């Protein structure tokens, strides 16, 4: 069974279509120097052109939803309920190269939310009211009875053990729920008084998986596409740094070199692999891990507090550990993410420049809002947003023939894009350079699994020394800002790892 966020993946749905067209329209306005208030307010009318609605009750609502998407895509806050108006009077504040986005990054567009039924077990009309009625027999809390010739689940009693769903010979009993809430690994999606989905920002870690799981496209994140385009227009020292998962994201026939060349055509002065920062990260984390292992080796007594090193490259995972397991969070490394390490290097070489991170990640947008990270990373784009810029600039990556060597990183850093790659690289380096033959390692992807993993560590069921957590399914290649299907992305990254010309850091680097 695919997990909830994998069900829509790989399809170009009408939700994808509207999202991408909004990005492309906004990008076009800046590129063509037409970004006036009137033009931006006209976008919903360009996207919803027909008189008859396609997905909602009327075109007016469809356009109102697109307008909210336009607001978020420009970096503005939502304006909802009675506040919603056909104008976007505050647009001038965001027509700038400065950073304008602020929390909350991930937003429920309430007029787009269809108030899906919340998590419950229901009997469908496949029920035959059979004589055997195993559902009633198997229910541990007597929540099922026959009402109107059909089994009925009393939701006030039901504990969602799901035994009835597995035992029914007609598969007539199902669990239904909100895709957004199912996708959320930190249970941050709640309901407001009217039943619309509402994000509890005390819990939300901006992983963005709800965005790509809502079949109505009612959740969206803020974008910096407009501000990046302003930077590119008015600043000649804007550098791009590309997350390790970038290979194949702009089409599997587009070579990594063509992507780099394309970015230069778009106006970026230089392009660097974030895998460079990941290589640095391996050295830092391995040093920390070695210290822990030394300490454990030296102490004879079984220590009360189980010491381990948690990876720090996924901001959503780090936030989850801090919010849900504050007592374990001190074991998560406090080093910078590869994004920040790489940006730091770029800023060292060109201090007055601007750095734009391009990746699969919404959490990185969140990370870059805060100091000291914001000193190094000026803006964050997803691959999808970058592709919209290519489209607006009429840059066709398929037509780029020139090649260029890409040699910023070793196989270690490039492997960070796939779940297991981070702990693999750190363990490899620690083993070979610090002389520890065995390192107990455990890892998890998706935040629900990460929480289970931390719970078992807390309970003492597992005693790993190195712990990798990733918020997205299969790691960064499964991120919400990706364009390529998972299988293709994995194969492409694996090849790019193998092709790494740069040697991994030697033991003298420690």
């Amino acid at each position, binding site marked *: 069974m695919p997990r909830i966020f994998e069900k829509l993946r*790989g399809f170009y749905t009408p939700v994808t279509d509207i999202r991408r067209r909004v990005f492309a329209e906004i990008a076009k306005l800046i590129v063509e120097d037409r970004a006036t208030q009137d033009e931006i307010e006209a976008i919903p009318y360009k996207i919803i052109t027909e008189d008859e609605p396609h997905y909602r009750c009327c075109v007016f609502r469809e356009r109102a939803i697109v307008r909210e998407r336009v607001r978020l895509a420009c970096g503005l806050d939502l304006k909802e309920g009675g506040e919603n108006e056909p104008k976007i009077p505050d647009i001038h504040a965001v027509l700038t190269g400065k950073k304008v986005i602020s929390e909350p990054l991930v937003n429920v567009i309430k007029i787009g939310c269809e108030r899906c039924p919340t998590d419950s077990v229901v009997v469908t009309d496949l029920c035959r009211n059979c004589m055997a009625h195993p559902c009633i027999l198997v229910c541990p809390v007597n929540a099922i009875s026959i009402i109107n010739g059909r089994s009925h689940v009393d939701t006030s009693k039901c504990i969602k053990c799901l035994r009835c769903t597995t035992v029914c010979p007609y598969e007539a009993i199902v669990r239904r729920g909100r895709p957004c809430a199912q996708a959320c690994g930190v249970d941050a999606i709640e309901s407001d008084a009217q039943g619309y989905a509402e994000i509890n920002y005390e819990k939300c870690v901006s992983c963005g998986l709800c965005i790509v799981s809502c079949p109505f496209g009612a959740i969206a994140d803020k974008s910096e596409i407009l501000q990046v385009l302003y930077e590119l227009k008015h600043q000649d020292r804007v550098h791009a740094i590309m997350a390790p998962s970038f290979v194949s994201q702009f089409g599997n026939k587009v070579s990594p070199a063509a992507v780099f060349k394309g970015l230069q055509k778009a106006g970026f002065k230089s392009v660097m692999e974030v895998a460079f920062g990941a290589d640095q990260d391996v050295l830092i984390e391995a040093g920390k891990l070695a210290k822990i292992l030394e300490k454990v080796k030296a102490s004879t007594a079984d220590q009360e507090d189980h010491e381990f090193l948690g990876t720090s490259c996924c901001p959503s995972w780090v936030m989850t550990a801090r919010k849900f397991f504050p007592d374990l969070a001190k074991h998560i490394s406090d080093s910078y993410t590869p994004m920040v390490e790489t940006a730091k290097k770029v800023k060292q070489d060109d201090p007055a420049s601007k750095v734009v991170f391009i990746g699969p990640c919404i959490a990185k947008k969140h990370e870059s809002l805060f100091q000291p990270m914001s000193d190094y990373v000026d803006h964050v784009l997803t691959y999808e947003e970058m592709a*919209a810029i290519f489209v607006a600039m009429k840059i066709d990556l398929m037509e780029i023939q020139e090649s260029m060597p890409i040699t910023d990183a070793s196989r270690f850093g490039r492997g960070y894009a796939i779940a297991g790659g981070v702990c693999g690289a750190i363990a490899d380096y620690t083993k070979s350079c610090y002389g520890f033959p065995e390192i107990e390692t455990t890892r998890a992807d998706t935040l629900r699994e990460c929480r289970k993993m931390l719970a078992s560590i807390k309970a003492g069921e597992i005693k790993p020394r190195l712990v990798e957590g990733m918020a997205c399914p299969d790691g960064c290649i499964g991120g919400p800002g990706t364009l390529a299907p998972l*299988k293709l992305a994995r194969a492409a990254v694996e090849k790019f790892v193998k092709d790494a010309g740069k040697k991994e850091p030697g033991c003298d680097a420690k």
Partner: protein
Amino acid sequence: MASRKVRVRICIGTNCSFHGGQLIYDKLDSEPLLQDHIDLETVKCFDKACKEGKNSPVVEIDGKLHARASIEKISEIIFTKLKKAGEL
């Protein structure tokens, strides 16, 4: 071996790709029911047809161009052709 193959060419230039061309290609390429029945190719661009942008993605089936293609439209055309030819 199938005697009648449908020739499908999909534009994966950046514009068409962004508007769904690449995903149509990926879906058809990994569709087990079509494995022996289509000649699937990617094309850099159908020049005029997709250069304007508003037709993207453009897909060509047996020589006929289809603008603003979607996976459901394209599969329907392919499956209809194959059924008519008695291949499926």
